[in-house]
């Protein structure tokens, strides 16, 4: 109690109030200590109220402690989100460099098919495969749910699609709504920048699937700028689609090598999609943490003002008590 009183006095003194006010406060505190048990009963009743009326003094005191605790916890949260933001910012430059590097892989492999004018085969009876590139970690705004929403929209248009999901987040969301269509799921991604070995291993496992798919689509978040992303699909063509393309003869590819080309193209596309998705995720996390820190700062300001007001109300209330008490004893 006394410790609290002196700390109050110090804080009051810091704000440049007159010295005798501090003294009075200490006296008030000591006085109110004698009347504690009676007050405690009121505390229980009134503690749920955010701002207590000046009549119930003890209730004021309780909310003061409450506000102080809440303020402290918000400050801690702000510290955490700020640190996470800094971590994401430092990771972002590396992720963006990896994304730009990986774009070369994807675009080179895309040029081949553009030149060959490859079109996806329009076989109605064959299934398609959709590879969704999300990651294992959350706390990065709505980029995973954006992907999931896009997948659901695509499945509504075209139900004859199997899903292969990279990353725990989209797996969790899609297994609830479209669990039956999932054939493969991958985990362990998102700790670091995706490597080409990751993409190769996924491509191998996908090509080992028993079903013969008419086309493989890769869905990922396209990085437009630091604040906006868009779920985009890129096509990885099947062997027949490549063989049927009009300008295919210009490349003079043997039939035997064709399978290698499609496998390699799938790995290239996956690598591109994974790296770009990773850059989006990091930048989204940075933004999300930036917003969270800002909100925490706003809340701290609000609670600080509330705290000061309540403190002043408590002091005023107790002063009134003393004065009335003194006036009564004089008579």
């Amino acid at each position, binding site marked *: 109690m006394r410790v609290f009183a002196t700390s109050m006095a110090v804080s009051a003194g810091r704000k440049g109030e007159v010295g005798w006010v501090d003294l009075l406060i200490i006296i008030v505190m000591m006085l109110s200590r004698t009347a504690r048990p009676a007050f405690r009963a009121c505390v229980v009743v009134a503690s749920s109220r955010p701002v207590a009326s000046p009549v119930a003094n003890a209730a004021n005191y309780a909310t003061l402690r409450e506000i102080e605790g809440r303020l402290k916890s918000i400050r801690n949260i702000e510290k955490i989100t700020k640190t996470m933001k800094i971590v994401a910012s430092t990771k972002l430059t590396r992720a963006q460099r990896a994304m730009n590097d990986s774009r070369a892989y994807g675009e080179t492999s895309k040029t081949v098919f553009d030149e060959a004018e490859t079109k996806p085969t329009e076989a109605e009876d064959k299934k398609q495969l959709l590879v969704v590139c999300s990651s294992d970690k959350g706390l990065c705004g709505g980029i995973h749910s954006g992907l999931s929403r896009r997948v659901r929209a695509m499945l509504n248009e075209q139900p004859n699609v199997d899903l292969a999901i990279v990353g725990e987040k989209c797996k969790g969301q899609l297994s609830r709504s479209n669990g039956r269509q999932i054939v493969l799921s991958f985990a362990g991604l998102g700790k670091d920048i995706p490597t080409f070995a990751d993409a190769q291993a996924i491509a*191998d496992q996908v090509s080992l699937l028993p079903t013969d798919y008419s086309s493989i689509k890769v869905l990922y978040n396209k990085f437009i700028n630091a604040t906006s992303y868009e779920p985009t699909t890129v096509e990885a063509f099947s062997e027949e689609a490549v063989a049927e393309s009009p300008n295919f003869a210009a490349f003079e590819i043997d039939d035997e090598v064709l399978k290698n080309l499609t496998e390699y193209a799938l790995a290239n596309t996956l690598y591109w999609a994974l790296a770009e998705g990773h850059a989006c995720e990091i930048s989204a996390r940075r933004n999300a943490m930036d917003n969270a820190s800002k909100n925490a700062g706003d809340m701290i300001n609000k609670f600080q003002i509330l705290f000061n007001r309540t403190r002043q109300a408590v002091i005023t209330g107790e002063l009134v008590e003393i004065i009335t008490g003194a006036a009564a004893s004089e008579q």
Partner: protein
Amino acid sequence: MAFAWKAAGITYNRYLAVASRAVRRSLKEDKRLQAERRGEMDLRFAKWESGRQGENKSLASANEAAMAEAASGGQQ
């Protein structure tokens, strides 16, 4: 054109991974450490059967097993 690695049941991606690993290992010490980080792969995967997730397995060992199976199937 027949490839020895194709006969061994290895896919093109696996062939590339093995080749690149060999190149990385033959680099000088400081460059090798940097390069080997690019070749790391530590994914897990699960197969799904009618809406249920199967067992979580290491992707690297599963790929190797599948290729070994393909190799023995090709020889018979």
